[in-house]
């Protein structure tokens, strides 16, 4: 136990290390992975997703219960220690040492909570806190909200009237459509403005409890995504030339998170071949209302062709007819694969081309593997049996998109290169004959006058 206690204490300290808002990503693309980063990233994920999955439980109840056997007698005598209420230094230290939990907030706050609990004063809800300026501010905001609600009502009525209007009166079909569009935009703006000043909405969003079915939370999540994650993704996509190489242009509108098992891959990371052997897991957060059917395509853009001294494409994965919505964000391909194996007819399947583990020759430059999420037109289902015939080598994403009438919603990428486990992965994937192939730089003979001569020595 004596050796256990400081260890746990250390992990507790690690958890409190303040992470930058990015999670574990430095600006230059290198990852700094600490033990503590994973929960932090998961929290961030939660905030954006806004689903009701519970946060990773703090190790208090379960682990403390599980380890209660080896807690020594003198520690049990300390009694129950509440991380919200411990006030003095000794209790804090005991809490960290025995339960491995850090006290929450400042000592002053904890003292205040403890005192009020001792006095049995009932907690005042946030909106009723007796601060004059705050209450005046709330009055102003509520008044504004009422105004906005009234405006929404009138705007809805106007929109309804316009829809019923004869196009000849409103100046032609096109003018009417343009007016309807602008009025709808204004209506959406008003709906956002009605709730944007609500502190409870802000609090809920920050806690990750926002309901993504409501426009305000979708708006906030979108704004947050566009502040950091999207610029970062854009940077990676342009720096690694995804945009001109795979697609002529791309405007990402969904937040995609790629993970292999529990390991989240930041865009552009090198992934070990043993890790990427299994199918990935996608989390696609869309910020627009309604359900969409999407296809997911994974393409390798750097397959070397030594004969032509160039590169070609290879398709690693195609899955179609996957529904996503603001609340339905997860695409677990492993589960989809299980469902597919139970399907009776090939048309019911969703995975058209099964996952081919990314592989690279020894000595070849790294391979970029881009993951694209493509929206199917008008929510129509694609014919999977037809896509099954797609050839993997020389796959062209542009032609595929044109042929299937898809619209790219977003992309992310990871990289792969030769590593220690690559040979085994290739053998398992059926490329055993390629294992021994090694790419080497061609030796360029220096021109005669560039040779080092006696004179130069």
């Amino acid at each position, binding site marked *: 136990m004596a050796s256990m206690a400081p260890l746990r204490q250390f992990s507790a300290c690690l958890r409190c290390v303040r992470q930058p808002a990015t999670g574990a990503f430095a600006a230059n693309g290198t990852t700094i992975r600490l033990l503590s980063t994973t929960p932090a990233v998961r929290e961030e994920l939660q905030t954006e997703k806004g689903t009701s999955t519970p946060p990773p439980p703090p190790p208090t109840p379960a682990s403390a219960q599980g380890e209660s056997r080896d807690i020594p007698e003198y520690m049990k005598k300390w009694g129950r220690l509440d991380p919200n209420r411990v006030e003095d230094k000794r209790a804090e230290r005991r809490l960290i040492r025995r339960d491995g939990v850090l006290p929450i907030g400042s000592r002053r*706050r904890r003292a205040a909570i403890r005192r009020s609990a001792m006095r049995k004063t009932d907690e005042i809800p*946030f909106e009723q806190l007796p601060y004059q300026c705050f209450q005046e501010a*709330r009055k*102003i*905001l509520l008044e*504004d909200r009422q105004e906005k609600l009234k405006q929404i009502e009138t705007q809805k009525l106007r929109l309804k009237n316009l829809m019923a209007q004869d196009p000849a009166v409103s100046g032609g079909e096109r003018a009417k459509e343009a007016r309807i569009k602008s009025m709808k935009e204004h209506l959406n703006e008003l709906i956002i403005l009605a709730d944007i*000043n609500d502190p409870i909405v802000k609090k809920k969003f920050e806690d990750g409890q926002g309901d993504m079915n409501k426009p305000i939370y979708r708006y906030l999540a979108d704004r947050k995504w566009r502040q950091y994650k999207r610029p970062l993704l854009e940077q990676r996509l342009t720096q690694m030339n995804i945009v001109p190489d795979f697609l002529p242009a791309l405007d990402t509108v969904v937040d995609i998170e790629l993970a292999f098992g529990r390991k989240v891959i930041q865009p552009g990371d090198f992934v070990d071949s043993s890790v990427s052997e299994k199918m990935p897991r996608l989390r696609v957060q869309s910020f627009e209302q309604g359900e969409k059917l999407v296809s997911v395509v994974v393409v390798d853009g750097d397959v070397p062709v030594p004969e032509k001294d160039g590169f070609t494409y290879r398709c690693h994965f195609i899955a179609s007819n996957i529904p996503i919505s603001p609340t339905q964000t997860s695409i677990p391909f492993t589960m989809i694969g299980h469902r597919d194996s139970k399907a009776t007819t090939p048309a019911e399947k969703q995975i058209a081309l099964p996952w081919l583990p990314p592989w690279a020759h020894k000595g070849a430059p790294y391979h970029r593997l881009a993951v694209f999420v493509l929206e199917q037109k008008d929510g129509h289902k694609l014919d999977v049996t037809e896509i099954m015939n797609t050839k993997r080598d020389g796959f062209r994403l542009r032609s595929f998109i044109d042929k299937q009438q898809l619209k790219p919603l977003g992309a992310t990428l990871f990289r792969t290169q030769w590593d220690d486990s690559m040979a085994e992965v290739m053998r398992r994937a059926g490329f055993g004959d390629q294992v021994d192939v090694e790419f080497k730089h061609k030796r360029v003979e220096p021109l005669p006058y560039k040779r080092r001569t006696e004179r130069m020595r």
Partner: protein
Amino acid sequence: MRPPLWRPVFRPLNPSSCCSRNLLSPRIHSPRKPVVAPCTSPFSTTARLGKRSKGKANAADPRVTAIRYHLQHPLTPRPLHFSRTRYLRHWTIHRAWMLFLRKRRRAEELELERQYESMRAACEHLRLMDDNGMTVPPAEAGGQGADPGTLGPRGKEVGRLYRGAMRKVGIWGSVPVEYARAQVDFPSREGWNHGWTR
């Protein structure tokens, strides 16, 4: 590390908490005799850093601790951290204040616009008025805007008051004419807006 000499150091003259006890503690009449502060270094106003002794004598009053905590500070003060609810309250008040300012600004703009429009309507009325106080059609009235002196087909009879009102003579008699427009560092990029029409 010793602090630089030029920095004010707030430290009790005696390492023990005797002086604070004397000044602040209500327990002056306690049976224990208060420790008299012996002046250890007569040539200095600041106290020497004596060795810290672990004992009952050093256990300070929490109020004294609080005061010392607020007096002794490093060069950079600690950052202002709000608690969660305090921050949310602050945010609420800030948003409400911004909303209030915006609404007030909008109201001021609207008021100014209303005043301008009513002035313009009055001038237009004068321009279209003949000597009998009757309104004439715009085709018969004189010029407006940049050339208010131009007469219409009915001559001086129409818009007499308007022409008088538009005369700028003597307006800048007592004030420098430079104040006619807001003074800026550079002339505007396209000196005059020729394309402007009402």
